[in-house]
């Protein structure tokens, strides 16, 4: 009861920080998609480069997010203190799921379909735009969904370098030994992650062509 009162008293702050959080997540995930989808496509076109791209994306994922923030602080342009550095970190973390799903989505297209398309005289570009990407779209979108959910979590850490968002409530709670403050940041963040997962999951199912729904549409 007391917790609810605490929430209500601060609803303005919680709401504005949630919004800040959301903007950070959406902007960084979109930017990551703009980079990752082309990278994933390139990886399917050039096998050797592809191994490098996927390997590198994997490595980035293994760096602890706090360490990555630490590395970025002294850097010019990309680094420093504030939302920009947080964006860079979030973009980095969102890259892997999107690159990987773009790659597996395209390479997972039935070889018979690709062979028929090439044999009837589609150019590589037409094959990509008219056949491979539409068929890979649900898988690519699943990657986007994972990236978004991960970003909601990682973005709370961004408050450490003054990027704002729900993390600032959590950090303040830790410093003041106030569990209510921690929860005021953690609960909306959890709800945001769940909401993103659910909402994007629905979009993903709608993107799945009817003929593929039973085979790949789920999950």
């Amino acid at each position, binding site marked *: 009861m007391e917790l609810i009162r605490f929430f209500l008293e601060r609803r303005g702050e919680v709401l504005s920080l949630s919004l800040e959080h959301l903007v950070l997540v959406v902007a960084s995930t979109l930017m990551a998609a703009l980079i990752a989808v082309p990278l994933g496509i390139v990886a399917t076109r050039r096998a050797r480069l592809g191994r490098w791209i996927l390997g590198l994306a994997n490595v980035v994922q293994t760096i602890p997010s706090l360490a990555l923030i630490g590395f970025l602080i002294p850097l010019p342009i990309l680094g420093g203190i504030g939302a920009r550095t947080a964006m860079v970190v979030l973009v980095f973390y969102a890259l892997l799921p999107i690159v990987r799903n773009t790659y597996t989505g395209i390479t997972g297209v039935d070889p018979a379909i690709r062979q028929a398309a090439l044999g009837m*005289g589609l150019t590589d570009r037409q094959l990509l735009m008219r056949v491979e990407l539409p*068929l890979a779209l649900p898988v690519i979108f699943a990657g986007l969904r994972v990236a978004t959910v991960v970003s909601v979590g990682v973005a709370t850490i961004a408050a450490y370098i003054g990027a704002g968002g729900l993390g600032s409530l959590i950090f303040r709670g830790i410093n003041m030994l106030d569990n209510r403050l921690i929860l005021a940041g953690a609960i909306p963040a959890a709800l945001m992650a769940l909401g993103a997962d659910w909402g994007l999951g629905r979009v993903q199912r709608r993107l799945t062509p009817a003929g593929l729904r039973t085979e790949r549409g789920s999950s």
Partner: protein
Amino acid sequence: MPSETGSSTVLEFDRVSFRVPDGPALVSELTLSVSEGESLMLLGRSGSGKTTTLRLINRLLDPSEGEVRVKGVATTAWDVIRLRRSIGYVIQEVGLFPHLDVERNIGMIPTLEKWERERVSGRVRELLELVGLAPDEFACRFPHELSGGQRQRVGVARALAADPPILLLDEPFGALDQITRIEMQQQFRQLQQRLRKTVVFVTHDIREAFLLGSRIALLEGGRLVANGTPEELRGSEHPEARIFLSSLNA
């Protein structure tokens, strides 16, 4: 090269070999020609090089040695997209685009060739009727809403969309049940009598070869071991030919 009188040569294999890097030759020293309007059946067991031979024609593969010529021009000298669009291609798995309805599947190449929309849909209706599917019923269906036989008909219609003079078929009826297969073979025969395309048809079924071919090329281990009309093949003494012929009476 003006060799035979009357009919002109559309396809030629001139001492063609194909091997994967560091691998054995899948096709060896193949010399073969196909005249306009002919139905050549490439007959052989699995691994005899039939499919490889077919893919050398539309340049899904390039010969390691020798030259494949389409209308007198080496495939390697053709613009590959132009070459493929002048050759219809049907495979056993059909390879229909699952995210597109029947009309868009069949109309893919005409659309890419920038035909007007009405011309494309007119052509699609014409082709659906040609392969025995009611246009009103089938044009808007998706591949997963079709039976195996219907899919293969759409595959044939799609291959014919831009009216290519040459048609390549890779065991097109191989995955169908017996009854449907016989039905499709009969229909294809009638279709071919009307359209007079130059056809190269891969099969491992000698009955199919006899039914649909004006000429049969028998391959064994990547080599051409017999090449002639069905009657000529019946008289062949080559052991592989005898094995295939004996399966006729089995």
